[in-house]
Structure formats: structure tokens, C-alpha cells
């Protein structure tokens, strides 16, 4: 009789069209600094939600019987994601029943591990896209284009503008009148 159990840390990405402000209304939403809570990616319109899946598998080698118990702590709102490993295992078992073939009892672990890994990969991918979006927004804010009658947003430069009309004083730009 062999027992194997572990608690699998998972993070999934979930579509979220709420704004950052509406997130601040919930306890978890306003505590995003704490990695225990979820993380909202505004430009990707996603939430990264963390959770755990408890897995217990027992192998009875003498009788050739295997029992697997999985407890998912994930939120039922994204049930399609949550039920994915369960559906995969069901498929495997239905498939092998038809062919009367032998399945390595550790396939349960593989199903959960591969699902979890795929979720992790997607999460990091979206995280990356969000970082890129932040950089893009920063560039837009820091280097706004100049319109004729508008002052250049502060660039902290002590140099004159392209046509020599603007001058920086104390980090603030003023229009020099001639």
C-alpha cells in the first residue's frame, strides 16, 4: 500500500472586465499587494487567481487497485478551468476501458501536473504582456507629443525645445516670451 499526497499550488488567469477602481471595493481587491490575493492586470483585462489543489493517491499493489482523491480549493466561478483535470482523467479511464489496456497508476499525477504547468505558463505570459503594456503607457506619458499651443510636459531637460521657444526653469517648463 503506497500513499502519496501533496498540495499543488496553482495560479490561473480569469477574464475580468472590471476596472481597477471597482476591484478596490472588495477586501481582496484592495489588498492586491498581498500575493495571497489575486492580481488584476488592467491592460490584459485578466485576474490572476491563486489557489490550491489537494491530491491524495493510494496504490494497493497487491490488489492492483488505485484510489485518487482530489480536493480543489478553486473558485467555482471558473468551473470550466477547474473541471479540466477531472475531465481529462475521466477521458483516460473511459478510453482505457474500451481497450482493456493497462494504465500506469501515476497518470493522475501527470494530468494534474501538466494542467497546473499549462496554467502557470499562461499566467506568466499574460504577466509579461501586462509589463509590456505598462512600459508602453509610461513611454506615452513621459514623451507626449508637442502641439503648437501646448507646453511640453516636464521632461526635466535644461535644454531648449526644437524651435528654441521653450525653456526649462526649476524643472518646470515655461514659455519664454520674446
Amino acid at each position, binding site marked *: 500500500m503506497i500513499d502519496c499526497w501533496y498540495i499543488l499550488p496553482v495560479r490561473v488567469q480569469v477574464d475580468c472586465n472590471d476596472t481597477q477602481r471597482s476591484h478596490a471595493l472588495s477586501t481582496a481587491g484592495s489588498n492586491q499587494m498581498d*500575493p495571497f490575493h489575486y492580481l488584476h492586470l488592467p491592460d490584459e483585462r485578466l485576474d490572476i487567481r*491563486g489557489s490550491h489543489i489537494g491530491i491524495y493517491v493510494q496504490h494497493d499493489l497487491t490488489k492492483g487497485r488505485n484510489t485518487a482523491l482530489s480536493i480543489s480549493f478553486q473558485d467555482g466561478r471558473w468551473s470550466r478551468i477547474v473541471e479540466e483535470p477531472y475531465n481529462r482523467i475521466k477521458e483516460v479511464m473511459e478510453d482505457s476501458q474500451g481497450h482493456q489496456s493497462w494504465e*500506469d497508476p501515476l497518470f493522475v499525477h501527470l494530468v494534474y*501536473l*501538466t494542467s497546473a504547468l499549462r496554467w502557470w505558463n499562461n499566467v506568466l505570459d499574460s504577466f509579461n504582456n501586462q509589463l509590456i503594456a505598462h512600459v508602453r503607457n*509610461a513611454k506615452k506619458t513621459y514623451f507626449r507629443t508637442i502641439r503648437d499651443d501646448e507646453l511640453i510636459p516636464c521632461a526635466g531637460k535644461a535644454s531648449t525645445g526644437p524651435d528654441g521657444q521653450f525653456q526649462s526653469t526649476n524643472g518646470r517648463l515655461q514659455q519664454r516670451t520674446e
Partner: protein
Amino acid sequence: MDNSNLQTEDFNNVLNKALHTMTAHLHRYGSELERLADIVEHVKWQHQGFFANRSDKDAHPTVEAETQRTQLGIIQISSQLEAVNSFRQELEDKTKNILALVFLRTNVRRDGMASDDQ
């Protein structure tokens, strides 16, 4: 004129907070992925110990083939996990870089000092 400066400062604050939050989460992801690696090791060990080395009477060709298939699967998971780990590390470095940039921007403005390094 003041308005746009204030807007940029607001933007900086918001971006700063967002980036710090992301850094905190990345750290947690790191420890969770470490945990995942330990679990994979444990499964690999258990499989090798109890299932990969069966006695002769159980050595049916299908069983052997399936066992090897599972073993390869576990190895593949390990290598994918390594890739995910390096990706996470890359993201952490990226986030730190962006934070440094924003920090530089914020400080240049607050001191009111001119800087030519933009």
C-alpha cells in the same frame, strides 16, 4: 502647465504601486513554483521506486511500455517546469528594471533638477 505635471506624478504613483504589487506576486510565484518542483521530484522518485522496477511476473510488454511512457512524461514535466522558472526569473528582472526607470523619472521631477539622461 501644472496640471500635466500633476498628471504625470499621479501616473508615476499609480505605476509604482502596480509594479511593486507585481514584484510581490512574482516573489510568491517563485516559491510556489519551487514547491511544484519538489512535488514533481517526489512523484518521479515514487514512480522509479515502486513502479518502474517491477518483478518479472508483472513485466507484461504493455505494462513496461506504459511505465516508460509515464517516466518520459515526468521528465518532460521537469524540463517544462525549468523553462517556466527561468521565465519567471526573467519577468522579475524586467519588473525591477522598469521600477528603476520610473524611480529615476520620479526623482528627476521632484528635485527639480535638470537631467540630460533621458
